[in-house]
């Protein structure tokens, strides 16, 4: 039990804040059913497929699970290298 001193000094993270932060992470996992390992595998495989058609820089690719309200979406951002447009079309 933190005392009033802790609270005034601000050295104590409230248990409610802790609960909220923990729940945020738990809920992302619960909702997607995807572990971060799954996301890494997905990213690797997706990249292999894309590279069959276009030349990309793997370091620039970002693949994330975003959420807006209760909606989750997989967002992939794959910058194309200059001069690729010709081959894509």
């Amino acid at each position, binding site marked *: 039990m933190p005392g009033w001193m802790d*609270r005034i000094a601000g050295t104590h993270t*409230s*248990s*409610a*804040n802790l*609960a*909220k932060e*923990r*729940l*945020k992470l*738990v*809920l992302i996992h*619960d*909702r997607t059913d995807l572990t971060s390992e799954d996301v890494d595998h997905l990213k690797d495989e997706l990249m292999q497929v894309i590279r069959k058609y276009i030349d990309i820089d793997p370091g620039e690719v970002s693949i994330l699970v975003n959420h807006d*309200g*209760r909606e989750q979406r997989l967002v992939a951002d794959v910058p194309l290298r200059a001069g690729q447009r010709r081959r894509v079309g």
Partner: protein
Amino acid sequence: MAAKVITVTSGKGGVGKTTTTANIAVALSMDGAKVVCLDGDIGLRNLDVVMGLENRIVYDLVDVVEGRCRLRQAMIRDKQNSELYLIPAAQTRDKNAISPSDMVRLCDELRPDFDWILIDSPAGIERGFRNVIAPADIVLVVTNPEVSAVRDADRIIGLVESEEKGPARLVINRLNSSMVKRGDMLSVDDVTELLAISLIGIVPEDESVISSANRGQPVVNDTKSRAGMAFRDIARRLRGEDVPFPPMEVKDDFFKKLFRVN
């Protein structure tokens, strides 16, 4: 008349579904609506004792479904509100005694004669959940401001969506505002932000909920009870009134401290 069916559910057990169902039902009927409650918690019936009607049970929901009695015979009229009825759950059977389509048929038979049909749910996500969700027009998810209850609420909200019964609306029950002020309980804003659904009620932790249940008199009958007031507000919001939420967790302000009743 064509009743709206409200199913009151939760992920975690014991968060206040039965209490919420009974109180909203009484609140709606106090304003003159015709209301029938269905206890969907087959095998663990409780709505009858919370409403104080346990001594009047002759037939139950499973008797209706299995054709041992007519629907009217299983309906118990409330002691105070002549337009409020209960159809109790069977106590000696389990949830496999009825199916989702039985519940849909039952509600369709009741709809023409009522304004509201309220269904109390068993805890959990199995067959019992599918039974009570099938006839629902509106789903209320009850939670407490605690980690496990919020987590399980999120699960149920997702299931309600995948059954195409969403968006569910949230009842936060047993909020202890002094704990919120101390930073030891999730606030209403925390919970709604995490669950990302719209709120329909905030019910404070209130001892009179328990003493009223002891008497078989839902707490809405007690005009002084803060929980009772919260349930009356939920009923008004269900009817489409725009009822503002009372400010419950203003961080320690001087006047609130002076006048705080609890």
